[in-house]
């Protein structure tokens, strides 16, 4: 009866039996259909529908089927298919609405069931695959377990073998050690045996020697003698002394003295060394403290107890230092304190250096980011430079010391040094005296020259006066003549005359004040009067002004030449002034220069 049946129900014949059990009415197809529904979940609907319809409901058993269906549905909880009938009639009319609702409900139910079936199927599939997977894993793990077990067994074997080897080696070592001990024992026993034999032989030998000695002594042959020409004196010239108890005691004393001297010397040396070492240690301690103290200010974030410890150490150490300075004894406690404090400081220094190293390494790793930390190369270069500098300075100091020492050694000898100094002084004195004589001579010469110059200047002045008077008269004449003659002629005459004047004047080197009028003598007299004090520049300029005005008054045309002359005068005047001032300041050297520039001016050099 369709696919439904064929899938689930094995024997069609048994169906009827089953059916009769389930249904109240003897109907083959519907009840069997129903049981099939309950039993098998996955049932396709497609083809079997029509056959199913025919199978269940034919035209004959419509009412039966209706009632059957109604019964079934009501038992399932659906509303009744048929209309409510009045009375008990066999035929019932179908309530179509109810039927349709039922059908719809059945469809929905069917769909739900299908979905549920699907879900269950998928779950089933999943569970199946999970199972497979788990089975695979299980088999793999089993394999792994097997292999690891095998490995373990192998390793255990190896371990056993190695332990066996180890035991063998230990045994060998023990054997070797035992052998060595045995050999040593053998050597020792042989040595004692040899010693014993040696001693035996030695005793025999001694006996022989004794015998021989006796024979030799007994013979007392004359050969054993000393043949000496004359006695030689003792090395130290003294006479030999008899050997008495006193000499023995003296020898003992001397021996002990020698020993004691040696010990005392050694002790002195050791004390010196000790003192040096203590000094060095104390210095080291101080330096370490000073090194550590300023450093501790920087790393404040570091352990707080260490600076405290340092400070306390410093306090302790200062007290210790004061103690030590006072006592300077080599007591145990003082020594221990010193060494302990140094050890403490050294540990702190070491830790600090380690920290610095770490910093440096961090810097290296960080790629020189920290600017405060200098790169190692620069540091090394700087240290090299510093070392060079130190060496140079040391060398310099040494040479200076040597020189100082030399000086001191030469100056040490008082007599010779004083003598030498006296010699030097004498030399200088003589030199100075010679120079003084020279100066005096020169002074005399200068005085003479001055006098002559002054006389010459006076003469010159007089001559000039006369000349000027003549000139004035001549000029007056010329002026008077000029009014009648041309200017040009007068120029040439004047220039010629002035040139002549220049020539005549320059022929006399000492006399340069040619264009000086009577006033010039006044100027000179002024100058001479004002000699003790050097004439000021204002006076100089005054004289020049006078000169220039004079020249202008006297001769207009000869301006071109005169200013030169005046200039020359001025310069020479200045030069002489300058030289005079120099002489008054300088002393000897100026006098010489004055000699050449001196003219009508009297000079009184301030020679010392």
């Amino acid at each position, binding site marked *: 009866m369709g696919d439904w049946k064929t899938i689930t129900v094995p024997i069609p014949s048994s169906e009827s039996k089953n059916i009769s059990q389930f249904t109240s009415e003897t109907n083959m197809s519907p009840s069997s259909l129903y049981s099939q529904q309950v039993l098998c979940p996955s049932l396709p609907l497609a083809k079997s529908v029509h056959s199913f319809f025919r199978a269940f409901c034919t035209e004959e058993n419509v009412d039966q089927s209706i009632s059957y269906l109604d019964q079934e549905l009501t038992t399932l909880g659906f509303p009744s298919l048929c209309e409510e009938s009045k009375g008990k009639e066999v035929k019932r009319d179908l309530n179509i609405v109810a039927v349709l609702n039922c059908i719809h409900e059945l469809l929905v139910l069917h769909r739900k069931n299908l979905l549920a079936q699907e879900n269950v199927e998928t779950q089933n599939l999943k569970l199946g695959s999970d199972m497979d997977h788990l089975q695979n894993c299980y088999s793999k793990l089993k394999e792994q377990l097997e292999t690891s077990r095998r490995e373990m067994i192998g390793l255990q074997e190896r371990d056993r073998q190695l332990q066996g080897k180890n035991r063998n080696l230990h045994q060998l070592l023990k054997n070797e050690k035992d052998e060595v001990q045995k050999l040593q024992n053998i050597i020792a026993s042989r040595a004692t045996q040899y010693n014993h034999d040696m001693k035996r032989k030695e005793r025999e030998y001694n006996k022989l020697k004794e015998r021989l000695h006796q024979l030799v002594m007994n*013979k007392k042959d004359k050969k054993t003698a*000393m043949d000496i020409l004359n006695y030689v004196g003792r090395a130290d010239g003294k006479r030999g002394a008899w050997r008495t108890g006193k000499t023995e005691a003296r020898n003992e004393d001397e021996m002990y003295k020698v020993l004691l001297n040696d010990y005392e010397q050694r002790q002195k040396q050791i004390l010196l060394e000790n003192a040096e070492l203590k000094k060095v240690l104390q210095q080291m301690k101080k330096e370490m403290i000073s090194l550590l103290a300023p450093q501790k200010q920087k790393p404040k974030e570091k352990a707080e107890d260490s600076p405290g410890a340092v400070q306390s150490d410093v306090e302790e150490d200062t007290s210790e230092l004061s103690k030590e300075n006072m006592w300077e004894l080599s007591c145990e406690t003082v020594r221990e304190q010193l060494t302990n404090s140094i050890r403490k400081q050294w540990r702190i220094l070491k830790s600090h250096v380690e920290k610095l190293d770490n910093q440096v390494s961090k810097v290296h790793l960080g790629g020189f980011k920290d600017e405060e930390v200098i790169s190692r190369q620069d540091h090394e270069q700087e240290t090299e430079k510093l070392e060079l500098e130190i060496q140079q300075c040391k060398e310099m100091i040494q040479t200076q010391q040597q020189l100082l020492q030399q000086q001191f050694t030469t100056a040490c000898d008082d007599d010779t040094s004083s003598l030498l100094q006296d010699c030097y002084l004498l030399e200088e004195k003589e030199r100075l005296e010679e120079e003084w004589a020279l100066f005096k001579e020169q002074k005399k010469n200068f005085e003479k020259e001055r006098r002559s110059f002054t006389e010459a200047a006076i003469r010159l002045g007089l001559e000039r006066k006369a000349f000027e008077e003549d000139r004035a008269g001549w000029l007056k004449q010329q002026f008077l003549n000029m009014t009648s003659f041309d200017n040009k002629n007068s120029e040439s005459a004047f220039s010629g005359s002035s040139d002549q004047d220049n020539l005549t004047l320059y022929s006399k080197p000492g006399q340069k004040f040619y264009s000086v009028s009577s006033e010039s003598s006044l100027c000179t007299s002024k100058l001479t009067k004002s000699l003790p004090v050097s004439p000021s520049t204002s006076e100089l300029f005054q004289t020049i002004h006078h000169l220039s005005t004079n020249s202008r008054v006297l001769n207009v045309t000869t301006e071109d030449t005169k200013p030169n002359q005046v200039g020359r005068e001025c310069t020479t005047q200045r030069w002489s002034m300058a030289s005079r001032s120099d002489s008054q300041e300088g002393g000897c050297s100026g006098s010489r220069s004055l000699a050449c520039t001196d003219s009508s001016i009297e000079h009184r050099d301030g020679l010392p």
Partner: protein
Amino acid sequence: MNFSEVFKLSNQLSRFSPNGKFLASCVQYRLVVRDVSTLQILQLYTCLDQIQYLEWSADSLFILCAMYKRGLVQVWSLEQPEWHCKIDEGSAGLVASCWSPDGRHILNTTEFHLRITVWSLCTKSVSYIKYPKACQQGITFTKDGRYMALAERRDCKDYISLFVCSDWQLLRHFDTDTQDLAGIEWAPNGCVLAAWDSCLEYKVLLYSLDGRLLSTYSAYEWSLGIKTIAWSPSSQFLAIGSYDEKVRILNHVTWKMITEFGHTATINNPKIVIYKEMEKSQNLEMENLPFPPTKAAASSLFNTESKYEVVSSPVSLQTLKPVTDRPNPKIGVGILAFSPDNCFLATRNDNIPNAVWIWDVQKLKLFVVLEHLAAVRSFQWNPQQARLAVCTGRSQVYLWSPAGCVSVQVPAEGTC
């Protein structure tokens, strides 16, 4: 360097006087005394037999000539050439002879070391010291000449006797804890005496002047022990050279070892200067060789000149494998010498026989190694400065000083 002409010498007996003014040398049975500056012969003495031993007295006034075969000792005076003195041991025989430090007594060791006879030149008196020990160094005098230490052996036990040299009074006599005392030596300060055992046992005993045992030192046992010892000139250090090719230095304060110097065959430290003797290649002109070859030419052919070259490390030195089954094997540090200024220690390791090792005592490190072409026979320090003279049996004498080293050809026919 100037060399004088060659003088005849026998038995390698040639000694400078302690005051450095005279040089005494022996030719057969003649004793020749020369002036050091001019090398003129000042005195010539004739002895009765071939001289076997020669020694100056400490004040350079007398010379002792010993003739062991005849048992004779003859003493000559420089001041009075006609003075003579002859000591005849007679049937007692003579094995060794030496001066006492005051230069007026002669100590003769008779045959079989039966006794030591002390002859006095001042009083013609004789004293006997019995049971002296026959060992490497049995008699030693202090540097100031006041005391003498003598090794004795009585009833198979070793003893040391201390004598006062002025009157030969026995000051101390004590036994030593040694199996077989091999030698004794005073420290230069005269207050400590070092005694060491034979090579079968490594043991050094240090005694004070009054006979107390100060300390014992033993580096190891069973192997062959001490070969030689040397005191430093300031008595600060005691260097012990042993058969294990090491030198151990003890300090005078604690008498404990402060360092040991090993003599290895290869030197790796680049700071050590290594001088290697190289032969200067000679240009032999085959045509100009005279025939028959004169002695000079022959000697010059075979005695090639050599010079030192500085070699950089690592250097491996020539070693000699010693024969193990023979006694007194040539292995270990056999020669030790401190320089007079206490700055250097020169050593020779007997199985590296061509090399002289110079150690810096201030730094306790190896300083210089001199390697030669032939085995080093002996070396000696200049008594006044740090200069070492080495001879190896070739015709050169080698001089080393901290400034450098030089190999000087000795113009002689033979070898030195």
